[in-house]
């Protein structure tokens, strides 16, 4: 892994533990990936719906450690429990067995330092772009004086300048997802959970937004779990791709993606990239 962009090291907006993240960027041979204390630890998580004997086992014994600043994708076919796992990590859904911790603290209910994004932008049509992005502040009754400045910052970061006072219905699907990303970034969460955020968009918009997301994620250095069933998207964005299988939902393999950062669209044309895509496909049993 090459660290060739030192000016990005501190992150423009993400001020959480840049030093630790910088460590992770060093030669992986020197600093073992799971050497440091994990930010997120998923330990023996299982989830069953319905009665124990007859019920559907959505997840079976998932173990995963995620270090600070890492970008992880969960990839797998429908029914592999990737969205269920994301909901458990978010605290929206309790695990049947096992636990998830964030910074050593057990997650038992939703937390304000965990941000979520869904397949639909889920913007409030009665709020302007700016007021939609402010929603987390309004809910947290956060009266900080730099609210406006922070909103302006994320708007600039996602290229929404000039659309602050538009209403969601005046924006395209891709632009709406940018607003949703802003709403997620604005409160500077420690952990971002993205559930197929670009799944409903057309291929061109999706690719453009993936490049944007890679840029923003490198800049903000947010620990991210990204759920998708798009293999190439997962490889492009991630440090590690967690490959999941069905019946029962479980982790099949974890593929390290040691492609250089910053990731730019050009990465897609490299052999390393296609090799990693091949690895993920093999892990899924597709080749």
């Amino acid at each position: 892994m090459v660290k060739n962009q030192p000016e990005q090291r501190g992150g423009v907006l993400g001020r959480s533990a840049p030093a630790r993240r910088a460590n992770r960027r060093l030669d992986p041979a020197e600093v073992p990936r799971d050497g440091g204390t994990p930010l997120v630890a998923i330990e023996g998580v299982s989830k069953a719906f319905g009665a124990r004997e007859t019920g559907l086992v959505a997840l079976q014994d998932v173990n995963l450690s995620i270090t600070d600043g890492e970008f992880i994708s969960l990839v797998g076919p429908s029914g592999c429990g990737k969205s269920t796992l994301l909901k458990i990590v978010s605290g929206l859904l309790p695990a049947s067995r096992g636990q998830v911790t964030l910074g050593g603290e057990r997650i038992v209910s939703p937390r304000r330092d965990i941000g979520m994004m869904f397949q639909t932008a889920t913007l409030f049509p009665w709020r302007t772009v700016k007021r939609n992005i402010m929603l987390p502040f309004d809910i947290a009754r956060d009266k900080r004086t730099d609210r406006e400045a922070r909103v302006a910052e994320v708007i600039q970061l996602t290229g929404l300048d000039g659309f602050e006072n538009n209403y969601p219905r005046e924006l395209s699907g891709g632009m709406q997802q940018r607003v949703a990303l802003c709403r997620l970034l604005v409160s500077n969460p420690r952990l971002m959970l993205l559930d197929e955020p670009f799944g409903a968009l057309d291929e061109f918009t999706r690719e453009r937004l993936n490049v944007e997301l890679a840029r923003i994620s490198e800049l903000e250095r947010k620990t991210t779990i990204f759920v998708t069933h798009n293999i190439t998207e997962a490889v492009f964005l991630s440090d590690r791709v967690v490959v999941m299988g069905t019946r029962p939902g479980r982790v099949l393999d974890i593929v390290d993606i040691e492609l250089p950062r910053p990731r730019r669209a050009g990465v897609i044309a490299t052999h390393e990239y296609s090799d990693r895509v091949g690895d993920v496909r093999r892990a899924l049993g597709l080749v």
Partner: protein
Amino acid sequence: MSAVEDRALAPPELGDLFASEIRGESKLAAVAKQVLLTAGSAFLLLGIWEVLSRIDPAFWPQVILSKPTDIIPAFFKAITSGFVWENLWVTFQETIFGFAIGAAGGFLFGVLIAISRTFSRATYPIVILFQTTPRVALAPVFIAWFGFGMSSKVALAAAICFFPVLINTITGLAVVDENALLLMRSLKASKFQTFVHLRLLSAMPSIFAGLKSALTFALIGAVIAELLGSNEGMGQLIDAASFLLQMDDVFAYLMVLGLLGLALFLVVNLVEKKLVFWHSNWDEG
């Protein structure tokens, strides 16, 4: 909600059900066509009426049928006479007070039923029972209770208004986007915050649909109560004129009432456009 879904959810333009393509019609042309066609069909209707009322006076007793050419002067006589305005003012007040009381009650009751399971279990079956009873039949009861004055009319108008607002409030508050609820949960929003920031606002279009029918119902309620027992109001004027077989006047008063109803409806429409601006048709945005 994406723009595409939004467009799909917007009600289709009336009469466009079988349109095979999107018509590139300018706004001005559309308005001009609307006005001309409405005026045209109105004139046609009045023409047929006029002809029918003139063919055979023996077969169509003109005293009963009345002629448009007699009604229109009667209408102008009505709107220039003070006593019609006095009675219209009475009916207007009954309608507005009845609407205000009924709509406020329906809204508050709807909110309580939507947020409290105990309250909903205690009252909802009774509410449904009342809803299936024709409430205009309550008019004699209210007249017996509250007398021939305005209060019995306000009471009937309120009773009729109550239900459409109630039902639409309950439905609006119940139907909320699942992901939006998930989002609020992930932000650790309290129940009160979810109600204020999400449920109430997403229920607004539905509540306004209820308010619109409620206002029309309020006018109906006020007039029915006036017809059944009153010493003032447009209903009383119509009752008195038809008793004297002055059909020209009856139709003139009906026109006055129709215009009042239209004016009230347009006001609610305007308020809705301002308050629920995000819900109008896509192209109007």
